[in-house]
């Protein structure tokens, strides 16, 4: 009981701190917060199928891209507001997700093979979008800017703080959904499928149906992240919102923070994004102080090193490790390593 009160107080304070952030941080920090929340949101959506159900997908960039392109094209060609476009994008992304998911799950494509198929999907979509003029090809699409009091109606804001609040609400929403899912029959069944699909089926778990459900939820919600990005940057390009590279970026936060944990993806994103910023600062510093060139990829090296360290020493991610250290079995070394 007391524990519950402390938890509530903790989350209240955290919530107030986050809500009030635009009042006391500058534009630079706000930018970092937005990107971190955005990656955390994407990671949390991916976490439903990848973390809880254990179906590692490297195709989720496709759904982000479809969300971004659907709302953008609807806006620039038909004038439809992205507030509605984002739902159409999400439905479209879910349809593609269910299609690929059905093919994979129906024919029992598992593990590395599922990963390869989704990876191929990500590349197919990126390449198609890069070569079709209607989608802006490699040049990308600019979103026509409209200023004035009606701008918020078409998801356009001149300042950063509205975007910050929107992504904050989106993140809170996906966390709530994940929280409810985790405690329902769905959550138990998804974890069982991750644990052992055959055993789960013998206990009455309709594996195909539940994996499809996880895929639908995951691809639907992650597409909102695409529209958000498009409206925030006012510009999209296939290699920014699609392809393997971006897929990997989505997956990194949950892996580092802890796959299949509620807060893992958010925690991962809040570690990764500042780390990337630091690498950029270091790159700049080395370039100016020592005239060192060719250090452009330093942030990727940082990512790589972080990933290797996490997978080697904390295969369950940071939160996974903490959860395992909490119990009476903490002394069992096996949990910490293998």
């Amino acid at each position, binding site marked *: 009981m007391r524990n519950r009160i402390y938890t509530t107080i903790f989350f209240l304070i955290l919530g107030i701190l986050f809500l009030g952030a635009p009042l006391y941080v500058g534009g630079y920090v706000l930018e970092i917060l937005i990107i971190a929340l955005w990656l955390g949101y994407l990671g949390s959506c991916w976490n439903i199928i990848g973390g809880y159900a254990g179906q590692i997908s490297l195709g989720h960039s496709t759904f982000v891209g479809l969300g971004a392109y659907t709302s953008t094209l609807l806006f620039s060609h038909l004038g439809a507001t992205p507030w509605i476009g984002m739902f159409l994008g999400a439905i479209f992304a879910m349809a593609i997700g269910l299609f690929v998911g059905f093919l994979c799950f129906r024919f029992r494509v598992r593990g590395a093979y599922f990963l390869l198929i989704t990876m191929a999907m990500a590349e197919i979509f990126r390449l198609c979008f890069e070569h079709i003029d209607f989608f802006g090809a490699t040049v990308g699409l600019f979103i026509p800017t409209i200023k004035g009091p009606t701008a918020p109606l078409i998801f356009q804001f001149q300042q950063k703080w509205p975007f910050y609040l929107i992504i904050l609400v989106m993140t809170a929403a996906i966390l709530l959904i994940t929280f409810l899912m985790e*405690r329902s*029959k769905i959550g138990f069944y998804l974890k069982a499928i991750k644990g*052992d699909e*055959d055993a789960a089926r013998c*206990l*009455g778990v309709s594996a195909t149906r539940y994996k499809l459900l996880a895929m639908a939820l995951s691809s639907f919600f992650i597409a909102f992240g695409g529209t958000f990005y498009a409206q925030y940057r006012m510009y999209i390009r296939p290699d920014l919102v699609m392809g393997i590279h971006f897929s990997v970026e989505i997956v990194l936060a949950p892996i580092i923070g802890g796959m299949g944990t509620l807060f893992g993806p958010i925690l991962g994103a809040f570690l990764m994004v500042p780390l990337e910023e630091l690498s950029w600062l270091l790159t700049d510093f080395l370039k100016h102080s020592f005239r060192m060139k060719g250090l452009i990829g330093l942030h990727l090296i940082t990512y790589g090193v972080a990933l290797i360290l996490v997978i080697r020493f904390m295969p369950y991610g940071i939160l996974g490790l903490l959860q395992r250290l909490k119990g009476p079995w903490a002394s069992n070394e*096996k949990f910490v390593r293998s």
Partner: protein
Amino acid sequence: MKNLLEVENITKNFGGLTALMRVSLVVSEGQIKSIIGPNGAGKTTLFNVITGFYRPNEGRILFQGKNIIGLPPEAIAFFGIGRTFQLVKPFLNMTLLENVMVGALNRTSSVREARRRAMDIIGFLGLEEKAKTPTDALTIEDRKRLELARALATSPSILLLDEVMAGLNPAEVNEMVELIQKMRDDGVTILLIEHVMHAVLALSDEVAVLNYGEKIYEGDPKLVVKDPKVIEVYLGEEYSLI
């Protein structure tokens, strides 16, 4: 007694290999029936056919009078056939309690109710103290019990147990025998594959013997140890002396 599970003329080929050759078997309600036989005789294959993992080339399987061939494993589990695996398959990402809850959710959508039922079963199997333990910290005996608990939580009419005693020491085997008897007393029909002969003899109402995919004996467990063919292919000479 009513026939609960009827296996009729099941044939299963894997390419050129015939794993099951017109095997028929009847399990009546409330019975404990054992399947014995040498390795590779097709015992586990038969379980996989019954639970819907393999589709047989020929034959019918009637459960409560209905043909269940062609149904997926999850539907068969829902109808009331539970099973355990020879190589235990715990959900390592969950605690023992959560593992059993997955089974209990077969009959309810309420997580709270599933938790209550799971706790009952965990108590029945004497695992209360380990309920919150992550499964990868369990010993092999506890993992075997977990398999049993999970299958039992689905509220099956019949439970197929695949070598639940393998790897247990004699004391643990005796405990397991008692558990299985208790389960039968609670109204669960049991079909088990087992190599531990004294457990088979202590438990079974009937025994079937498989050899190279064919049933060579079915009937009284007291007589099976005297059957010359069974002694020749499986038991060996010393059992004929019992």
